[in-house]
């Protein structure tokens, strides 16, 4: 939109900007190219469902996907009700300047900044040892739930706040109870926001490794209960890369699967947001 002039400084600046962009684009393309090149040819249904063999050098990632799924289920099953409840409380029952609201919001903001390894320490001390859950899918899921709560609450709260005040006032004027207002007016209107919040939280949880090393453990077998130790996808990549000589090719494919899942998660979040904004613009 601005026309470049031809001074030396101008050319230098342009050169600098394009160099920076090349410097960033190269490793990105290199990384994704590498993952596709080395990971793609092994990717098959068989890889996704079969059991890892010989410490993961051969075989697939079936039980690891199941463990990851269970950890995510535990995480969301705990985080969703707490997150939804807190978001409702924050948006409907507290004003911006109220002490309780500010306290909760502030502590959630701080929690969002805590490094994931610290959550791992906490999970190990609290869930694994104090509550006696040991290295288990349950401990891992609960630790992740603590970690994703802030991001979930913030997104959901924003979507409640975006609902026009008129709707609440009309409901109150009609004498509808608050419970009914929440159930029939606020929740339906905020469903996409809630979904997006959950999906974003899920994405963050799925990418996590450090918080899981000391909580859900390393066992790469098919879990039979939530008290079993289960290996998440990210930990499988870590283990193959660090501790298994000759594990690189399976690590590439597993990384490809993980990134594919994360991509689906993120795309569906942005798809829902987009869909919803266009829906809302239509007269209902």
């Amino acid at each position, binding site marked *: 939109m601005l026309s470049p002039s031809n001074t030396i400084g101008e050319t230098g600046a342009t050169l600098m900007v394009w160099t920076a962009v090349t410097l960033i684009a190269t490793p990105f393309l290199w990384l994704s190219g590498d993952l596709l090149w080395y990971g793609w040819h092994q990717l098959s249904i068989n890889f996704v469902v079969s059991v890892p063999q010989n410490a993961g050098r051969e075989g697939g990632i079936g039980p690891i996907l199941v463990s990851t799924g269970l950890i995510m289920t*535990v995480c969301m099953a705990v985080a969703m009700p707490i997150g939804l409840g807190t978001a409702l409380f924050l948006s409907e029952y507290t004003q911006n300047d109220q002490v309780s609201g500010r306290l909760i919001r502030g502590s959630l903001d701080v929690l969002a900044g805590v490094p994931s390894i610290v959550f791992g320490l906490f999970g190990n001390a609290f869930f694994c040892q104090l509550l006696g859950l040991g290295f288990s899918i349950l401990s891992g899921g609960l630790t992740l739930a603590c970690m994703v709560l802030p991001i979930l609450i913030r997104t959901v709260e924003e979507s409640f706040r975006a609902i026009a005040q008129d709707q609440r006032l009309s409901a109150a004027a009609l004498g509808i109870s608050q419970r009914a207002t929440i159930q029939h007016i606020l929740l*339906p209107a905020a469903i996409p926001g809630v979904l997006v919040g959950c999906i974003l939280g899920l994405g963050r949880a799925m990418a996590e490794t450090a918080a899981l090393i000391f909580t859900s453990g390393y066992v790469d077998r098919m879990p039979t209960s939530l008290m079993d130790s289960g290996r998440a996808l990210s930990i499988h990549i870590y283990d193959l890369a660090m*501790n298994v*000589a000759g594990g690189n090719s399976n690590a590439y494919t597993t990384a490809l699967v993980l990134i594919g899942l994360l991509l689906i998660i993120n795309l569906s979040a942005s798809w829902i947001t987009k869909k919803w904004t266009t829906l809302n613009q239509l007269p209902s």
Partner: protein
Amino acid sequence: MNNIILGTLTSFRALLVFPLLCLYVLVFLPPAEADSGKLVITGSSTMAPLLLEIGKRFEATHPDIRIDVQAGGSSRGIADTIRGLADIGMASRTLTPEENHLHGTVVAHDGIGIILHVSNPLQELTNKQIRSIYSGETTNWQQVGGRDGPITVVNKAQGRSTLELFLQYFKLSNRDIHAHVVIGDNEQGIKTIAGNPNAIGYVSIGTAQYDASHGLPIRLLPLQQIPASLDTVRTGVFPLSRPLTLVTKSSPKGLTKSFIEFAQSSKVHDLILQQYFIPF
């Protein structure tokens, strides 16, 4: 328009209750017997592959039982056993006097060997040379009669019994060691050395022989002119050997006992030999 999206999610209550219900079902559906039939074994990365195999064979004869093995170092095995996080700890060394309150059972023997990349032409190193490499005085392979190339010293992390035995044998202190890479599991060490032609490291002989026979580019060096092999460890000639021990908090009972007895029995000798260890 909103109602269309809401669709199946009928009510507020469903939205809250459903996930909780899922959780409870998942927690309580698998009957509690799954817990009583489970053994958690953690510790030495040298022993983990062996115990994994023994566990599989044990499970084959005891279908209700599940055996979970996790590596992390001998100190972890002992720490987890003391804290009750593991039923059995794996320690690839003898118990120290401070650990006398624990109960140890030897299942096999192993040695510690110096490994190099296969392309490294060096055939032998004296103890003195190894000491000077690890303390940072020798920094190029030329100084010990090899080709020209800077030495990458790979050392074990603290809490690993391999490190403790290595230091003890070479009369070194961890403070004197000048390392370039610090590794955890044996496999990590082998992977590091397989990827770096100028590296030197030390790992379990069993693990090294297993990996070398599976085509990894590493080579074991003799120690004091005694080759690092199954035979020299078996006859006790190899100077750097150690017992592989299963540790329990008190003398083993019930399932723990039957598993340890199984691991000591001749039914698993072939598994021990497959991993290049010496049966008890």
